[in-house]
C-alpha cells in the first residue's frame, strides 16, 4: 500500500476496495501466527523440492547450495512440508520467542 492502512480515509479507498498494486501481500508479514517451525536436516535432504512445491504460502525457498529453508516472515508452521518430505529431512520444532 502507498501508506499504512490506518492512515486511509474512507474516500481514499478504491471502489470495492480493489487493490491495483500487484504483489503487496508481501508487505503483510504473517509469520508471527506460528507456534511450530520447520527445521531442515540437510544430510537427509535429497533436494527433490516437494517441500517447496507443497508449501501453501510460497514461504519455502531454495538456497545457493540447492537445499531448502523457510522464510520465517511468512511461514505459519502448518507442517505440510514436514508431512510431505519423503526422506524425513524436516522436523517441526516448537517456536521459542
Amino acid at each position, binding site marked *: 500500500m502507498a501508506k499504512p*492502512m*490506518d492512515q486511509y480515509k*474512507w474516500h481514499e*479507498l478504491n*471502489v*470495492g*476496495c480493489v487493490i*491495483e498494486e500487484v504483489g503487496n501481500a508481501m508487505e503483510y508479514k504473517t509469520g508471527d501466527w506460528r507456534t511450530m517451525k520447520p527445521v531442515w536436516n540437510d544430510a537427509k535432504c535429497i533436494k527433490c523440492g516437494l517441500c517447496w512445491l507443497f508449501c501453501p504460502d510460497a514461504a519455502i525457498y531454495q538456497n545457493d547450495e540447492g537445499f531448502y529453508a523457510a522464510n520465517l516472515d511468512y511461514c505459519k508452521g502448518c507442517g505440510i512440508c514436514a508431512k510431505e518430505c519423503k526422506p524425513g529431512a524436516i522436523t517441526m520444532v516448537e517456536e521459542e520467542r
Partner: protein
Amino acid sequence: MKEGKTGIEVSIAASIAAKLARVEVVAAYPITPQTHIVEHLSELVANGELDASYVNVESEHSAMSACCGASAAGARTFTSTSAQGMELMHEILFIASAMRFPIVMAAVNRALSSPLSIWGDHSDVMAARDTGWIMLFCENGQEVVDSIIMAFKIAEDRRVLLPVMVNLDGFSLSHVIEPIEFPSQEKVDAFLPPYDPLYTLHPDKPVTMGAYGMPELYTEAKYAQEMALIDSKKVVIEVMDDFGKRFGRSYKPVETYNTEKADTVFIALGSINENIKTAIDMLKEEGREVGLIHLRLFRPFPSDELIAALKGVKRVAVIERAMPGGAMNSPLFNEISSLVHSNSMGIQLNNYIVGLGGRDVNPEDFHGIIDDMLSPEAKKETPKEEKNYRVIGVRG
C-alpha cells in the same frame, strides 16, 4: 417485438427486458414463482436469440457467486430468485454489494417456509433489505420491464457501481398477463450503452478483488460503501427522469395518489398499491378522501421525498406483507416511524400486516383499516404492548 402493447405474462416480459438490456451472463437456479423468467432466458440463449452465457448452477448460492465472478470479469450480469432461493444466496448478496458489482436481480417476492408456501409476500426481500443492494419495487408489469432496463443504467453508473434488486410480487405480478409496451432495441441501446467496468479481472492488468480487511480499514471500507448507496439516490432519480424523456413513462422514487385532499394515507410497497388505489377510488365514492404514498425506491431509503410527500398528512397506515419477527413493528413501519419522529412530524402511525403467504387482500380490507385508524384505540401515542401492529384477517 411489435410496436404498441403486447398481452404477455409479466415473467416473460421480465426476461425480454433482460434481453433488451443485452445481458451477457445469466446465472440462475429455478424456483417458484421466478421459474418462467429464467426458463425463458434459457430458451432465448439456447435459440441463439440472446448472445449470452447461461450458467446452469446447482443452487442459488452458486448462482449469485457465478454472477459475482461474471461481473468481476466485466460482463453485464442478470439473475432472478425467490424466497428460499434468496435466503440461500444471502451470504453472497453482501459480497455483491461490497465488491460493487452492478448485478441486476429480479426478485420475485414470495413467502418463506415454513409452512411451505410458494405464494407471494415480502418476507424474502425484508430479510435481505440490509444487504447493501439498491431496491426498487414494482406495481405492475410495465414497471417491471422498465425497471429492469433502468436498473442496469443505475447499477453501472460509475458514481454507483452497486447491484440492483427489482422486486415484483410473486404470482400477483409474475404470473399475470398484462398489456406491456416494449421499447425498441435501438432506443434501449441508445439509453443503455455497453457496460464499461472500472476494474476487471484480466491478466493484462491484474488487480486484487475481495482482499482481507483488517480492523484498521474495515470501518472505512463499509462507510465508503454506505456513502455510495446513499448517494445512488440522485443517480436513480436522474435515470428515472432520462427514461421518462426517452420512453414517455416517468417514474419517481416516491409517488403519491389522491394525497392532495387527504390527511390519511397508506404507505406500501409493490403490487398491493394497485389494490389500495382501487380501495381509495371506492372510498372517494363514499365521500371519504384517503391517499397513498407509494415507495418505488426502498433502498436507499428516500427520506427527503417521503418528508415532502407526508406534508399535511395526519395519519399513516403502513401496510406490510411480512411478519416483524419479534420486533415491535414491521420493517417498513420502523423506518417510516424513525423518519416521522426524528423530524418531529407529529403524525399518527399505524401498522397493518396483510397478504401473508399469498392471502388475498381486498379493497374492503383497506376500508376496515381506515375505520380502525380513526378509532380512539388507534390514536394513542405510546403503544403499551410489545406488538404494535395488527394482522388483518387473522382468525381467532
